[in-house]
């Protein structure tokens, strides 16, 4: 049962990803990405990470991609503005070929880890409670740093988004 769920979700994720890189229209791509991300969220849940499942749905599918869609709409890109991409598929195949050794390498390395059952753990694991405790006990520094990172990104976004005096 879990296997089937996993396979279905994995297929959704993969096809979502493929759709993202294959569709010409950005809007379709964004939608494919949402499919992919939601499927991934499902897999997170399979991996006993309910909090992250939630975050994935809300933050990614909800916020970031919505923002993306908003900007796509906002820019109102017409078909003529879309770049012509004749070599797309060729590049993908060549790139895929080049990525094979990389993937083999990584899978080979992971196969050295001993096999362990991966069924869903109890309620406590992955819950917001245990998550919060881990975050604030052990990972305060990165957490605080994230805030500074976001501040910096904020300043950057402001700088870019602000209309320059000679902008055009």
């Amino acid at each position: 049962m879990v296997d089937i769920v996993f396979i279905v979700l994995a297929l959704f994720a993969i096809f979502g990803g493929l759709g993202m890189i294959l569709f010409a229209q950005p809007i379709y791509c964004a939608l494919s990405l949402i499919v992919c991300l939601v499927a991934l969220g499902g897999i997170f849940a399979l991996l006993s990470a309910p909090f992250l499942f939630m975050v994935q749905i809300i933050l990614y599918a909800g916020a970031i991609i919505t923002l993306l869609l908003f900007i796509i709409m906002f820019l109102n890109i017409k078909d003529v503005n879309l770049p012509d991409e004749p070599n797309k598929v060729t590049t993908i195949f060549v790139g895929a070929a080049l990525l094979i050794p990389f993937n083999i390498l990584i899978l080979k390395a992971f196969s050295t880890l001993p096999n362990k059952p991966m069924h869903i753990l109890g309620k406590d694991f992955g819950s917001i409670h245990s998550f919060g405790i881990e975050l604030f006990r052990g990972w305060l520094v990165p957490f605080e740093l994230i805030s500074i990172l976001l501040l910096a990104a904020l300043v950057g976004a402001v700088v870019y988004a602000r209309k320059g005096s000679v902008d055009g």
Partner: protein
Amino acid sequence: MNNFLLAWIVLIPLLSSMTLGLMYLFSIKVIKIPNIVFTVLGLSSPFLSFMIGFSFFLQMIGNHEIFLYKAYRWLSVDGYDIDMGFMADKLSIFMVLFITFVGGLIHIYASGYMKTDKGYGKFFFYFNLFLASMLLLVLADSPIIMFIGWEGVGVCSYFLISYYYEDTKNVQAGNKAFIANRVGDLGFIIAMITMIYYVGSNGFDYINLEAGMQNVPINVLTFIGSALFVGAIGKSAQIPLFVWLPDAMAGPTPVSALIHAATMVTAGVYMVARFHFLYDLIPNVGLIIAYVGAFSALFAAIIATKQTDIKKILAYSTMSQLGYMFIAVGLGGYSVGIFHVFTHAFFKALLFMGAGAVIVALHHEQNIFKMGGMRSKTPIVYFAMLIATLAITGIPPFAGFFSKDEILLTAFSSGEYLIWGIGVLTAILTAYYMFRLLFVVFHGKNYQESRKLHTISKSMIMPLIVLAFGSIVAGFIGIPEILGGNNLVGSWLNDWKNSSLHVEHSREFILMGINILAAVIGTYVAYKKFFNYDMAIVPKYNGIIWKKFYIDEIYDRFIVKKVKEVSIFISYKVDVNFIDMIVMGLSRGFIKSGHFISKVQNANTRFYAFFMLVGISVISTYLIMVMR
């Protein structure tokens, strides 16, 4: 002992020349110095040297003393010392005497000849320097010091030949002389260095060399002897290095008289005589020397028969006479050779000076066929020239007869009949071309009467007379025993007297007769052809003899031109197109690769990412292989 005076024989002309040189520079840059100052300085040095030399000569009479004087240690490397040493034995003193004497006379002559020249002081600077070098050459006690003089002589001749340096031709002639001499020097240096290694372990003066020579392998000695002889060939203008001598006539006539007749060119002969102890051990090389001399004599005589330039005729005759000398020294008759050097110095100097006088009188005309009838115009010169011509032709009792006769006698008695034959043949030719010259210049008729002659100063005439006298009597010091003389030269130089030189009296007389006959034949032919020659006709010569057997052209074509081609090939082809190409090609290659690589730098983000992907892929592949 007052041996240090030996050094002064050399030092006096040297100092005098230095003073002259500085004074000359001073005079052209600051204040003009009157010529008389130069004259006094320039002329006094040969005679002072002559006096000193004569004093040694006097001390030497009757004993076999050798005077040595080591001034200072010239060089000391690795415990091996070479001294700046002077040595006077009979040979060197003999040379010193006639060099200073004849040289002094030529100095006097030059003071008249060069009177109006702007570089009067410079001329005497060179002249004295030359004299100093020549004296060093003969007075040196070791080959290396001799070489200093040897080269000094060469470079002075260069400067004197190219004395009128504004004209390219003169400088070229000087260059030619110097380079040809240098070829000879190459041989000299090689010989010298070989000697140091094989012979000179105890010291490098003649005495030690002579002692050391005995136990050296014969092939080494042969090598040394041959190399040395190359030096002699260069200096004494023998085949094949003679080409410079005729061209050297570009210098002022006193130069020709001094250098190319009396002194410098005889250095080769002197050198062979000086190394008699070496050549005694290697008679084969001596024979080669004799043959080279013989052929040079003949060759030069043949060329001389067709020349028209008065000085060139004399130059070829010099070469021819030098050939005689080499015949003598090559066959071991060192004293004979030196005797001929001695007599030759007188009459050849006389010939040149006479010719010079004629040339001056005719406003520097040198073609004999444009002269003519000078007998009446310049009678003293005529008689001087006549005596000299008779002397060179070998008419008894003039100087040349005795020495030439002895040479031919030497050749005959050594059993080298071919050489003897060539010698006789050359004697005929000598008589022919010398009288040809004399007849054309002094007896030719229909010359341009209207020409106004340049006056010949007394200082030019006086030495002529002295030398004419010398040309008559010089031979008497070497009258062979057969004629009742006691061969002063031979006994003076008896160290070098070849013991094998004994033939029957009757045969000696016959030989003498043949010589006289040869001279007469030559003279007669010349008389027939050129006495009262019609000067209106300037003969146009052609043919191989007039062209001097194309030797110059051959050298030019096969050596000079080739070297120049190689030079151009090296400096403009190899260096520029090959070696520099590699260097520049390397840098161009760098820049080219830079441009090639910059294609990667195409500002395409996707491409950059792709490039990264390739890198990652390669690294992954490597890791897969490493980690199994």
